[in-house]
């Protein structure tokens, strides 16, 4: 019998320095997924890696072994010692894990409560797991359910209605620095989803112009076309920087692309006209020390996240309702998950006793040798009554819905006590949750 386990870290438990070391880039995620499910303890796995979190969700034979296996996998894959990692990691098992994923996909665990990107990122993670065949029937059901829960939360609460997000926070900050954005120019370096979103927000806030640069110039030209801006070659960033008031950056560069000296030089040329750098890249693109220069403001993804956390009281109320939805869905899903184990056991148990009863009734009737229908009926109903009365307590115990109880153990006990075969009763479980999530 297997259990769902999630091991991960997020913006609250680990700083960006750790998260950037533990991130799984899209290019290598296939390799990582294969390494994960190759492990003996793990039968299915999904890896979610965003700039705010890394979550490894697996289906493991035993919860504690699963947790240990995932931790081992993380430290092995990234070459970080287990002791160093332990302080940053959290883990959830069983019902807790179900709740965690539902909350993450519904954006209830996000830095910006209700921000919309996370659901797409969870769907991407699911997509990778499907592509590299790391996902199996249980996690498949689990993730699809998570998508439908997220959708429900979005439509039934106002958690995601107003645009409070990293990109929105960036606009708010820009307004506090520049006042009016009408005569300001934005430079977009790289093509992160969040940066593009922030650029769109800034455009609707009325900025004058936008420069777009990218390592591949064609991409810059294409994006500039979308934004009605000017493409700039990547090696000409420094010469164009003096024209930019707001710089949005999210490249995949492994080190800073703008050093403190670069920024000092530019701000001097600009005669100290303020510059606002928004660094959404992990690892970071802009030397955070540049924030110490007068009239230069550098915010990295963590800074924006911190800023927002203080600004979310209104959403908190809606979040409470969302939590209720999640809690109900968790219970429903967990019941389904338990039924996955309980129902076949009950079916096997009944089948076994039916067989014993039928054999014993036939034996008794042949000894009696009677053809009297009344006698036959009495014997038959006597056996059935005994069977039902004997079976009632174990079946009731299996079906009992108790929060936090470990049904796996109970099922194992019942199977052992009644000597049931391991894969009996292939009847599909009742009360299967309705398929609601869209994939992709």
């Amino acid at each position: 019998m297997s259990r769902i386990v999630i091991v991960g870290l997020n913006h609250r438990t680990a700083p960006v320095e750790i998260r950037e070391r533990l991130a799984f880039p899209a290019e290598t995620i296939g390799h990582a997924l294969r390494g994960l499910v190759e492990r003996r303890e793990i039968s299915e796995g999904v890896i979610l890696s965003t700039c705010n979190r890394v979550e490894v969700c697996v289906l493991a034979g035993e919860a504690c072994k699963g947790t240990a296996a995932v931790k081992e996998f993380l430290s092995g894959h990234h070459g970080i010692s287990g002791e160093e990692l332990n302080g940053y990691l959290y883990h959830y098992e069983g019902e807790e894990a179900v709740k965690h994923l539902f909350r993450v996909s519904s954006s209830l665990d996000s830095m910006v409560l209700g921000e919309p990107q996370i659901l797409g990122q969870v769907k991407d993670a699911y997509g990778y797991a499907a592509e590299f065949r790391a996902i199996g029937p249980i996690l498949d059901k689990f993730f699809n359910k998570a998508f439908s829960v997220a959708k429900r939360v979005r439509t039934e609460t106002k958690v995601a209605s107003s645009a409070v997000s990293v990109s929105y926070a960036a606009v708010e900050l820009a307004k506090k620095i520049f006042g009016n954005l009408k005569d300001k120019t934005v430079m977009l370096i790289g093509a992160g989803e969040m940066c593009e979103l922030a650029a769109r927000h800034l455009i609707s806030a009325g900025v004058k112009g936008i420069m777009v640069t990218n390592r591949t110039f064609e991409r810059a030209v294409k994006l500039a076309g979308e934004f009605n801006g000017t493409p700039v070659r990547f090696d000409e960033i420094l010469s164009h920087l003096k024209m930019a008031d707001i710089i949005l950056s999210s490249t995949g560069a492994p080190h800073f692309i703008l050093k403190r000296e670069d920024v000092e030089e530019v701000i001097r040329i600009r005669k100290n006209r303020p510059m606002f750098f928004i660094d959404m890249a992990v690892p970071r693109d802009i030397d955070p020390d540049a924030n110490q220069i007068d009239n230069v403001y550098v915010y990295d993804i963590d800074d924006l996240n911190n800023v927002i956390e203080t600004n979310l009281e209104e959403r908190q109320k809606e979040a409470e309702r969302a939590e209720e939805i999640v809690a109900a869905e968790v219970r429903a899903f967990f019941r389904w998950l338990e039924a996955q184990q309980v129902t076949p056991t009950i079916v096997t148990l009944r089948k076994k006793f039916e067989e014993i009863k039928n054999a014993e009734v036939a034996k008794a009737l042949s000894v009696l040798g009677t053809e009297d229908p009344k006698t036959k009926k009495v014997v038959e109903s006597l056996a059935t009554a005994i069977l039902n009365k004997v079976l009632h307590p174990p079946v009731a115990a299996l079906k009992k819905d108790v929060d936090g109880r470990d049904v796996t153990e109970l099922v194992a006990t019942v199977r052992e006590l009644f000597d049931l075969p391991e894969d009996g009763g292939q009847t599909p479980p009742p009360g299967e949750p309705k398929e609601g999530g869209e994939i992709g």
Partner: protein
Amino acid sequence: MHITLLKVTTLFYLVGALLYLYFIVTLNERGAKLGRMLLLVGVLLHAAGFVARYFVAGYTPITNLFESLSFFAMAIVAVFLLTELRYNLRVLGSFIAPLGFVFSVFSAFQSGEVARLAPALNSYWLPVHVILLFIGDAVFAIAFGAGIMYLLQEKEVKKKRMGAIFKRLPSLDVLDDINYRCLTVGFPLLTLGIITGSIWAEYAWGSYWSWDPKETWSLITWLLYAALLHGRLTVGWRGRKAAILAIIGFCAVLFTFLGVNLLLPGLHSYTSLSG
């Protein structure tokens, strides 16, 4: 009668300042609106008192500590009301109105008796020289308030907190703009004030410049603001640096106005403590 009028304005400034402070804490717009109303009534009563005293005394009443503190308070409140009109920046009042009140209350504790005018002051240059300087100083007081607000807000943005201050204070750009505008208005006033004083000195004392402490300190103040203006126009001193200089500049203004009178006796010692 006019003395009571002048002193009673202190109460208006006090309540106005309290309302502006109430506004910055609770963000209740009515606090700011009522505060502005009280400051406006206060400043009008103040002007009426000033005019009344002019007729009673027979000279422009800006000759002793009571009169000059009172006039300075009025100038600060009046310049603030004009700035608020221009920028629609209520929260500035939470910083400036208390400042106006402080000068007003300081004045209210001085003796308001009309004294005989010192013969040297009996000149048309008196109102020109002193009023130019006080209005200039009041403009610098606004820059001082904006400078403090700038430093607070800049710290908030640099430290990356979006807390209570962040929400309440305006954008850095607006605060820096106020700083600059105040400089472009205050600096010419200060310059003209010093020049007219110098001309008057030639008439009254026979020398354009005699290195009396007040003259020395106004030169220091002038040099500070000149440096700020120059740095601003040539190498782009702005933001934090400009805010700090505006604060230091206003401290120099205060020392030239009060410190010199109270500590360094010289030709200008008409406004020493009385009563």
